[in-house]
């Protein structure tokens, strides 16, 4: 197998005069492309060194090499199908993440997505801290046409969560989605608050929360790894929504995250409008990672 592949490539090289020598300069360019995705120095070094081992001193095209790296990355990112766990009656989804990553907007888009799949939603405005966070989620609930449970500014988020689940039960809704205030994974008091929300909803509905979705900002760099760790430890995350993937940032940090944690990426955010959400697809994600 190996020799045949090597042979094939060698023959191709003969006919391809625009091919480039795999030397330090080439490997440097490749490294730049890998780093640019935010995958981090470790994974980028590995991929580069692998290319060096296979091709050094030979002539190949950068495109060709990228193609092979894309295939490798696709394999790394491929995950078992990770549909939302909607087995609860109602199912409870808790949405967490650092400040400004895109939680509230993702909830709006996810609700629309679920509504169009025939689900009845209730939203819970669990961010009782940030100015006008409640109003923001209320506008989303109006766009979707679903119920929303709100508390006063400064109210206990766990009690809002509790009432949201109550409301879902009362109205026969399929899914309760609870927004939370942005917080940094280093703020241990605020991280404990998430655990409290978990416990409170767990008392109300068996196995709740059924999903704890961590919203990561695709423009984030290596700190997203610390976010994945901190939020998983404190809130038992079950999946990732990668928001803001419509910009020029690539979101490659999910590579090391996927490697280190059992956290499937479930959705990607592709804009600020209600339709701008899609199920995560490892193959197209990896392709976009290295595209120009």
């Amino acid at each position, binding site marked *: 197998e190996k020799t045949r592949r090597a042979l094939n490539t060698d023959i191709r090289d003969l006919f391809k005069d625009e091919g480039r020598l795999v030397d330090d300069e080439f490997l440097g360019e490749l*490294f*730049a492309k890998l*780093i*640019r*995705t*935010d995958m*981090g*120095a470790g994974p980028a070094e590995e991929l580069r060194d692998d290319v060096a081992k296979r091709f050094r001193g030979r002539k190949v095209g950068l495109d060709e090499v990228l193609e092979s790296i894309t295939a490798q990355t696709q394999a790394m990112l491929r995950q078992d199908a990770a549909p939302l766990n909607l087995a609860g009656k109602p199912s409870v989804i808790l949405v967490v993440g*650092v*400040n*400004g*990553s*895109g939680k509230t907007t993702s909830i*709006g888009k996810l609700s629309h997505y679920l509504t169009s799949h025939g689900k009845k939603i209730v939203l819970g405005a669990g961010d009782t*801290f*940030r*100015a*006008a*966070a409640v*109003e*923001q989620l*209320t*506008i*989303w609930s109006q766009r979707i046409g679903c119920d929303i449970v709100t508390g006063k500014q400064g109210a206990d988020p766990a009690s809002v969560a509790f009432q949201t689940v109550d409301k879902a039960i009362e109205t026969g809704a399929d899914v309760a989605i609870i927004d939370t205030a942005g917080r*940094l*994974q*280093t*703020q241990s008091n605020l991280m404990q608050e998430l655990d409290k929300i978990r416990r409170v909803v767990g008392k109300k509905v068996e196995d709740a929360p059924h999903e704890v979705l961590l919203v990561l*900002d695709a*423009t*984030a*760099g*290596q*700190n*997203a790894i*610390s*976010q994945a760790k901190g939020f998983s430890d404190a809130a038992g995350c079950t999946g990732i929504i990668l928001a*803001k993937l*419509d*910009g*020029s*940032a*690539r979101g490659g*940090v999910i590579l090391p995250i996927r490697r280190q944690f059992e956290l499937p990426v479930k959705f990607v955010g592709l804009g*600020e409008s209600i339709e701008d959400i899609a199920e995560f697809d490892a193959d197209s994600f990896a392709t976009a990672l290295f595209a120009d």
Partner: protein
Amino acid sequence: MFDSLSDGLQSAFKSLRGKGKLTEGNMREGLEIVQRSLLEADVSYPVVQEFMGHVSERALGKKVLLSLRPEQELVRIVHDELVSILGPVDPSIHLKKDGATIIMLCGLQGSGKTTTCGKLAQLLIEQKIKPTLVAADLQRPAAIEQLKVIGEQLGVPVYSETDNKNPVQVCKNGVAKAEAEGSRVVILDTAGRLAIDEELMAELARIDKKVGPDQVYLVVDGMTGQDAVNSADAFNKSLELDGVVMTKLDGDARGGALLSVKHVTGVPIKFIGTGEHFDALEPFRPEGMAGRILQMGDIVAAAAEAHRIVDEKE
């Protein structure tokens, strides 16, 4: 792998302890470790490369003090270079002598613009100046409401229009009203936008042209990765920035994107945001930031101490 960068560096320079000069050969491994550290801190790759070039130039041929270990000398050079690139320091809001000074905040979605409006207002209030805030984000749901709440909490006026869909007009009207009322400072809160969103970037340029803010600050999320070079460059090209504010540095992000932003824009870094409350705004200090990005504080401190002792002896 080494437990810490310091261990890695010490090992890289084992053979060189306490003698001779820094040469290309003996620095290579150490430079690689520094480079990797900067990448892990999210400094953009092209910026890292250029930076490492400067550092090795400065370090080449440098005699290593007898009392100093070579890795200490190298890290000292790296640290000094970081400090000098991140500077100069200018953490004040320049106010015009007459008339209202207009400050415009811009940046990517969710970077912290609206919150920073509140923080700047608080800073001005402490200087006995009552600014007017203008709600020019007509995109994000409840953005106007958010700024109104902030204005109420701080006791400063917020100008907004409910039905106007044109942020250029809102800004013009807001500035006119604030000036008529004798406000000395007007702060424009603009909508978050992607640097590749040509339409919205053009809109920002129109505000810049028609309203003529005196100070335009780019608000950058401290957790930003490699893309910082692209977005900062795009904002700077559309607008000619006057300053940068980096937010969310109260967590464990190393904030290397700041080096990228500084590199491509060249404008001074004004403040850093260290929390969600209005008082969580600090004047920017290059030394602190260099230490945070590099995370080799122990080596930097040891090197400084060794130099101090040598200086004293001489």
